[in-house]
């Protein structure tokens, strides 16, 4: 007898699933206000999670981009003569860890800038005549860590006006990211626990309302899994409902942010995480986190009640 039932349980029958789902829906609507409160709590938590992650993911990406950068930009004095320039180039090539030296004329630099702005060149006609940019040597190193040494070395060479590399920015950014992350994590964990607690309470109410039913179920031989399923689904539904608004928000907000910020940032050679990647991944993550919050809440209260 046991063997037969065991086999039967391996694949849950469709009508059993339908029954569990309809039981869950019934009790969700019966406890409408509690359901609403729990779903709202999940929504608020997930909105904050979403905003936080949108920023964090991008900061991480940007920091990573800069960190991967093996470029040292050496800006030349305006007064540098072509002979001095050639001499400097030779010197730069001799510096340890420098892999390549590329010259970027001020004219080329301006063109790059203008095309990254994507604007109609006419507006900047004046710039063409009176180019404010300096000539630049772009040095590449093998590894990002070497940029700092190279930069310190070449800073004192003649005719060098300024040296730029990513490292300092990156360090500042990582410091900021760390602080923001810690604050964010504490805040979000607090909110998530609150949501779990609220869902657990809602489920507890629905269990109390169906105590008689559970007693009879167990009396006539329903398995614990069978008894538990509707509550599990209830929690899951609440969690997923709670993620709907945050997902929409992510799509709208990130669409707006991405398309309005991207072009500005690209002048700085920084790119944001593409809209589609962010929308898809963050949405899945939010639905997942919502589901986990719901299931966690429901299982924690069912366990206490069924003593299993």
């Amino acid at each position, binding site marked *: *007898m*046991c063997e037969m*039932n065991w086999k*039967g349980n391996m694949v849950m*029958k469709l*009508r*059993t699933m339908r*029954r569990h789902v309809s039981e869950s829906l019934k009790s969700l609507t019966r406890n409408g206000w509690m359901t609403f409160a729990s779903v709202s709590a999940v929504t608020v938590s997930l909105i904050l999670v979403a905003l936080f992650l949108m920023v964090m993911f991008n900061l991480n990406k940007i920091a990573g981009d800069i960190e991967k950068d093996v470029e040292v930009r050496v800006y030349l004095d305006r007064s540098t003569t072509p002979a001095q320039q050639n001499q400097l180039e030779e010197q730069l090539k001799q510096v340890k860890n420098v892999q390549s030296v590329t010259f970027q004329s001020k004219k080329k630099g301006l063109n790059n800038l203008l095309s990254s702005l994507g604007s109609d060149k006419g507006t900047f006609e004046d710039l063409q005549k009176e180019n404010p940019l300096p000539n630049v040597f772009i040095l590449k190193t093998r590894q990002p860590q070497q940029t700092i040494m190279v930069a310190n070395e070449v800073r004192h060479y003649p005719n060098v006006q300024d040296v730029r590399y990513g490292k300092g920015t990156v360090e500042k950014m990582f410091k900021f990211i760390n602080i923001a992350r810690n604050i964010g994590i504490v805040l979000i964990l607090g909110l998530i626990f609150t949501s779990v607690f609220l869902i657990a309470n809602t489920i507890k109410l629905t269990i109390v309302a169906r105590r*008689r*039913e559970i*007693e*009879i*179920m*167990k*009396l*006539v*031989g*329903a*398995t*614990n899994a*069978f008894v538990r399923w509707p509550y599990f689904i209830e929690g899951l539904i609440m969690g997923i409902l709670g993620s709907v608004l945050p997902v929409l928000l992510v799509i709208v907000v990130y669409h707006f942010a991405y398309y309005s910020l991207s072009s500005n940032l690209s002048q700085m050679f920084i790119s944001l995480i593409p809209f589609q990647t962010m929308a898809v991944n963050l949405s899945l993550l939010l639905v997942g986190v919502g589901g986990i919050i719901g299931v966690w809440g429901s299982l924690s209260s069912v366990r206490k009640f069924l003593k*299993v």
Partner: protein
Amino acid sequence: MDDMIVMQNVWKAYPNGVMALNGIDLSVKKGEFVYVVGPSGAGKSTFIKMIYRELKPTRGKIIIDNKNIASLRERQVPYFRRKIGVVFQDFKLLPKLTVYENVAFALEVIEERPVYIKKRVMEVLDLVGLKHKLRSFPDQLSGGEQQRVSIARSICNRPPVLIADEPTGNLDPETSWQIMDVFKRINLQGTTIVMATHNKSIVDSIKHRVIALEGGMIVRDELEGEYGYEA
């Protein structure tokens, strides 16, 4: 081998230290009808709860249908329960379900096929004489009718054993006789019945085996016995 229920040296201590059963030995044959009598606090309900594994014995073996349920794993308890029908003094019906739904509920939650459920529910409602009330709700029924619904529910999965804890405790004498009539029919189909009761007139006039408990021990065990206490 035709024993349905066997108890060997069964003891039960509640967590608070009360010894409710003190070394019970007995065997009940397939198809037998047994009354369990005794003063209140004697251990009748505890004895009943042992049979459907609501409680585990502190010591001893309880063998039902050739399986020791004292050592049954928790996961297997639901499948064991399907072989035992249980009836209580307070009916335990679901107030928001109709008569039909209350009985069908027991089969739905063990995932029986809908076609079978329909057929079987009508069969058992016919057996307890309530086929015509299938759309009524429990609060539209008399106590006796409610108890018959609860009996229908307890037997719908064709359990070989039916146990009842004071099934007539809340009913007037006349209704109690109707319940006994239903039990008789169920017993005639081969179901073993164990019934804890206070009802002297029933025990004395519908003769069956009588097991008397006092202080958690069997003090009397007679075929065709008498109630033996003042009503």
